């Protein structure tokens, strides 16, 4: 259960990252290590489609269809070693960027491999998380700057 929520976290980080930034991080990862990623093959090549986003008012109301969004998904497989079963990485990202979905899937697979996990965490996931946090803080600051305090004035009669 714990490893599942951990995986959900890194998959979310990969999916929400800016594609260019993710590409840059993966290049850094490649350059820092053996010079190349392990060989992988597509179980499902990147494909774009629509998904219906559903929601509940207040988290408890009736389920309703909020609207459709564009989504690109990709599944890759890495043969870690002949005796172990292959590792499968999933990438589901919003938008139509095929490279983004592919990189997210590859990073998801690498995060499940013992000998890659720490390096991917350090060079890809951590910087992307920092970016996301920075984005959120900037957004909050900008929102806070527009804050208006309403005062009720007593009208003298």
């Amino acid at each position, binding site marked *: 259960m714990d490893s599942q929520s951990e995986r959900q976290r890194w998959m979310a980080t990969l999916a929400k990252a800016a594609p260019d930034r993710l590409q840059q991080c993966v290049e850094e990862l490649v350059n820092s290590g053996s010079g190349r990623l392990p060989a992988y*093959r*597509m*179980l*499902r*090549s990147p*494909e774009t489609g629509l998904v219906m986003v559903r929601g509940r008012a207040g988290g408890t109301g009736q389920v309703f269809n909020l609207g459709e969004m564009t989504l690109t998904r990709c599944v890759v*497989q890495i043969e870690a070693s002949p005796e172990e*079963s*292959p590792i*499968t990485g999933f990438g589901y990202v919003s938008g139509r960027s095929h490279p983004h979905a592919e990189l997210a899937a590859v990073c998801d697979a690498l995060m499940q491999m013992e000998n890659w996990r720490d390096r991917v965490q350090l060079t890809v996931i951590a910087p992307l998380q920092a970016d996301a946090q920075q984005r959120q803080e900037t957004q909050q600051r900008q929102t806070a700057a527009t804050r208006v305090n309403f005062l009720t004035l007593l009208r003298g009669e």
Partner: protein
Amino acid sequence: MTTLPGFCDPVHDAQTTFRALLDSMAHPGRVYPIPPVPEVPTGLLPTCGAACLTLLDLETSVWLQPHQSAAVRQWLLFHTGCTFVTDSEVADFAIVDVPHIPDLTQFNWGTAADPETSTTLLIQIPDASLSVERGDRPISLTGPGIDGTTTFAADLVSAHGSPLPARFWRDWSTNHYAYPLGIDVFLFDQRSVVGLPRTAQAIHPHS
């Protein structure tokens, strides 16, 4: 989790396969080649695999024979998202192997109001080669889509293989006379498909 990919080119391969399936239903008894899926799990023919990837989706229910492997189930689930049913009478599609073809009566024949809701049977004949030439135990067909009569044969390529059992053709005649109810069948060998819609009447020399 499946370990095998599906179509190389999902859009065009599915379109080509769909066209072959459509043509084979329009011309019963003619042999149409299907672009095979490069890798299929054991228990599924490459041609039948291609047909499955083309025809199945989230809304279709599939019945597999009990001896069918878990790998086939997982592969179909991963690539198509279809639902599996244990009751063959409610299945939209059923994948069966020669010579273990179940009675055709155990599938859904549709209702008078909705005859199109019947089960479509995908029959795999791995040891045979389907051909229009007069071969071993040819089957003559007549009906819509056929000019007069046509003949096709499921010739065995290996001595130990099994052809379609004679029981199938007896069931088929019952199926044909139940029109507009009845099931439709696709026969698959290693390379191609032959369509057998419920309108096709079989004239079997051995019956």
